């Protein structure tokens, strides 16, 4: 038979038995105590690395977002500052204008009052003068009347003259 030709291709029963036994021992021991922990550790490490990478990417995205937010915030703050400055300026201008207007109104009022007072004083003075003139006229008239008792014609002349003088006043 072919197997008898060469002892190399003739499997040895003893070795077959020992090999089967040994291989199953190796398979059992390694599968339980070596491959299981090793493959588990390798898998865990790979998962860790994967997580770390995705985490890093996430953090990076977050950082970019944060930076954008900051920039937006800064822009907004700048705008707000500008608005505030403008508002303050407006208020200041308004205050000044208001003050000026108020002052002007007050001044006008004082002037008006002063004019009124002056008018009043003037009227009072005129009334006084008129009164005095009246009194003077009465006094004069009295004197004239006393003197005119003697001369009628002259009396009338004199009255006419006086009357004319008064009108001229």
């Amino acid at each position: 038979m072919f197997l008898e030709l060469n002892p190399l291709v003739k499997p040895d029963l003893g070795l077959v038995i020992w090999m089967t036994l040994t291989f199953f021992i190796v398979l059992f021991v390694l599968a339980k105590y070596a491959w299981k922990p090793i493959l588990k550790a390798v898998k865990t490490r790979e998962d860790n690395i994967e997580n770390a990478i995705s985490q890093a990417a996430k953090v990076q995205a977050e950082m970019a977002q944060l930076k954008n937010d900051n920039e937006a915030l800064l822009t907004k703050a700048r705008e707000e500052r500008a608005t505030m400055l403008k508002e303050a300026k407006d208020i200041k201008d308004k205050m000044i204008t208001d003050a000026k207007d108020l002052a002007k109104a007050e001044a006008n009022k004082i002037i008006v009052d002063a004019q009124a007072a002056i008018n009043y004083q003037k009227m009072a003075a005129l009334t006084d003068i008129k009164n005095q003139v009246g009194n003077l006229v009465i006094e004069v008239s009295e004197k004239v009347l006393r003197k005119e008792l003697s001369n009628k014609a002259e009396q009338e002349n004199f009255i006419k003259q006086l009357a004319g003088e008064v009108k001229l006043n």
Partner: protein
Amino acid sequence: MAFKGIKSLLVGVLAGFLLLNSSAVKAQHGGETTTDTTKAHNVEEFNITETIMDHVKDSYGWHLWGHTSVSLPVILYTDKGLEVFSSSKLINEHHEAVAYAGKNTYKVNKESGKVQILNAHGTANHKAKLFDISITKNVATLLLSMLLVCVVFLSVARAYTKRGVTSAPKGLQSFLEPIILFVRDDIAKPNIGPKYTKYMPFLLSIFFFIWLNNLLGLIPFFPGGANLSGNIAFTMVLALIVFVVVNVNSNKAFWKHVFWMPGVPVPMKIFLAPIELLGVFIKPISLMIRLFANITAGHILVLALICLIFVFKAVAAAAVAVPFAAFIYCIELLVAFLQAFIFTMLTALYIGMATEEHHHEEAH
């Protein structure tokens, strides 16, 4: 010429050294047997086939150097029960086979190198029941490699549990981790698919067991020197286990493809069925023969090159033989890895073929 690499020179010299020793033994044997004749100082004709076969084959003792060898237990189961004795009982001080009288009379057959039961006339009794489960050189190597592979990977596993997964691998762990990942990512994953995790322990075990034994076989002296992974029994058991694993895990779709190939005309289906069925058996057989033939051929090649020196009976022949042998040795180192890889790869491929889900059968 050998200054190219001190290492390769060393390897070659070691290989030569081993052979030189055994030849010396042979020369002495020759001397002893021819003592009676007048040509006492003449040595026996150098038999290259016998020398090489002696190294490639299994043996009961483990030869170290010269006349020194490690005796291994011979375990026999016969009609008369179990018999255990030292292999040193089967040889005399000149390493010649002698009969040992236990419950039967045992003697090593010169042709097969196996123990035989002798009958009363001193001739081999082939009819007698004899189960030889001796711890031969190959079995001893097998047990040694089992210990070695367990020690190595248990220590690596301990490194993982002790050092945790956050620290980088160190030492042996950092050397073996890429290989483990190679088996996982380049052998298991592409060939088996998503269910690869279930087969990982099996694939890793056969890969490292074959590779370690290939490498042990390349060490020319103790504790290597046995041609274990180039032994047909070794590869046969592995192939048988692969056969069982593949077929136990095979699914309906696989057997449908074997017996009734979808997508081909009916006559073709009938024609393909026996071929496919044969393929189921040929696949593991090819695994068995490939590993056995590659490793044994490598050993024979190195030994044959070294034997050139003795064939030419000139030390000068070493100038050619040693560099060539060193070169083949380097190739053998590669082959040691390659054959372990191919065996594992094909196993993964067969598992993948047997467990593949055929969702797109209509598309064929």
